[in-house]
């Protein structure tokens, strides 16, 4: 366990000092600030737009951080051969993979925490500037803590996407890994449609394939509760619990696959 934590700590230190995540965080914060300006153009809908855009920014920029650092952490080490020094120390390959993954998830959490603080600052400003009449018309308070539920599920989704990126990066090039991960993220959000393919297709074989893909591909739709929290609709605790459990199981499977792939890999 100590080896895993040491690898995670080094991966975290390395990735928080990289400039790429910073620029993503800055973009996200700028986007949240810009959402305030956009909200001025839409009478009565301003808070909803800020909440919506803010969560979207968190999700999208978080995704970019997860993908680009996720694919880099292993494939960059292999490509630049820094993995040679590490894997000849008393560290097993599974410890290396798990450590790298933990380090990246830690980086992701820190970056999302920064974005969340910026998000709440914008919302706080809205709250302070709003008249009581305007405030009364909001479906949910500006500083609604339920927004954190959406953010926790975004973090869980990104942790899953990171595990996907890590798996791809154990056997393919960084570019291919990025494309495959982004493709899987898109597919994951439309996964429910695959389940219903038989309703629109007459070819049973294709319907079976679609159903098979539905079970194999990650189902990311349950992680998206942005609309609910923005409108103040309660999100059931059981939904959050099951979704987090689903993420945990899926991540475990992905990391097991990544470890199995990496365990017998030759480093030329």
């Amino acid at each position, binding site marked *: 366990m100590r080896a895993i934590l040491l690898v995670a700590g*080094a991966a975290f230190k*390395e990735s928080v000092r990289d400039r790429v995540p910073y620029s993503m965080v800055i973009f996200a914060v700028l986007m949240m600030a810009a959402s305030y300006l956009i909200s001025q153009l839409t009478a009565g809908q301003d808070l909803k737009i800020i909440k919506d855009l803010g969560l979207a920014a968190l999700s999208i920029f978080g995704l970019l951080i997860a993908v680009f650092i996720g694919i880099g952490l292993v494939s960059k080490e292999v490509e*630049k051969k*820094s993995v040679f020094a590490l*894997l*000849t*120390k*008393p560290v097993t390959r599974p410890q290396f993979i798990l450590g790298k993954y933990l380090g990246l998830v830690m980086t992701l959490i820190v970056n999302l925490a920064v974005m969340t603080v910026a998000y709440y600052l914008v919302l706080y400003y809205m709250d302070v500037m709003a008249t009581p009449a305007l405030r009364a018309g909001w479906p949910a308070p500006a500083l609604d803590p339920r927004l954190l539920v959406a953010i926790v599920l975004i973090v869980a989704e990104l942790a899953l996407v990171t595990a996907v990126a890590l798996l791809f990066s154990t056997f393919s090039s960084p570019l291919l890994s990025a494309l495959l991960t982004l493709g899987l993220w898109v597919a994951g959000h439309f996964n429910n449609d695959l389940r219903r393919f038989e309703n629109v297709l007459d070819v049973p074989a294709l319907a079976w394939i679609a159903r098979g893909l539905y079970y194999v591909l990650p189902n990311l739709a349950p992680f998206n509760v942005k609309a609910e929290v923005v409108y103040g609709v309660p999100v059931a605790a059981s939904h959050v619990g099951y979704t987090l459990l689903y993420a945990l199981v899926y991540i475990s499977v992905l990391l097991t696959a990544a470890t199995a792939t990496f365990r017998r890999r*030759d480093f030329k």
Partner: protein
Amino acid sequence: MAAAIETEHLTKDFPVGFWRPRPYRALDDLTLQIEAGEVFGFLGPNGAGKSTTLKLLMQLLFATRGTARILGRPVGDVSVRRRIGFLAENPYFYDYLTAEELLSYFAKLFGYRGADVTTRVSRVLDDAGLGAERRKRLRQFSKGMLQRVGLAQALINDPDVLFLDEPMSGLDPLGRRRVRDQILGLRARGCTVFFSSHILSDAEALCSRVAIVVRGRMVASGKLTDILSFGLKGWELVVANVTDEVRAELEKRARQVTPLAHGRFMVDLSPDADPPRLMHELGGRGIEVVSLNPVRDTLEDYFVQTVAAAAPRPTGGV
């Protein structure tokens, strides 16, 4: 006592080609035994299979056939890694960590804690001549400095067996001298050193034994003294105060007489020329003997001959 390093029929094939990959044999049937305390030079031209062998020993590659053991245990054993150090060819580390952070990280992976980590890190950084650069990020390091960090990290655990892949690569003359001295120091404290190189003067200066690998096959191995002693090619005599009469006589007895500056001559004698007798005779005729040196096969000569004579690389047969 088990050998420090031993390989038996170690073979590695790589698949080549995309659609119908065929095996390409990078290392063929390597059987080696290196005793504890030896400095062993693993020599060969580029692409001979030196790095492949080191990576197989480090289990960065998996053998197609054969076995390898370090300190009596299989190479995959994590407990072995506690007792070895490895420097890869052209090492590269994490851009955003400092030299001190990198070495602390590696020291902790060996289980060291607290003050022990600090002491070890300071020692290996000072030995590598990087004490002043300890807080600099590695992305600012030159190739030679990274090479020195590479050696420092390989020594952080006081290894019993040290593996170095082209350790002199990228170093300036001072850096090379420092590495040579470090290797000699390690030999003095009983550390086994296995290093690959194509810089033969380093091998000649450091190694007790060498092996030469060409196109994936070991073509020669042995003690340097054994390899080179039978290579006496002649004698090189430099003389001064030579009269025309003596010069004519020397030309009869030598393979070649070459005039040098300041009235000196270099006399190239055959191996059976009996130089002590000749010097005695010349001394009696007022001729000054400036120097006499045996001309031996250098490791470079031996290397060139061996490489030239080596058979073409076999293709993989699995």
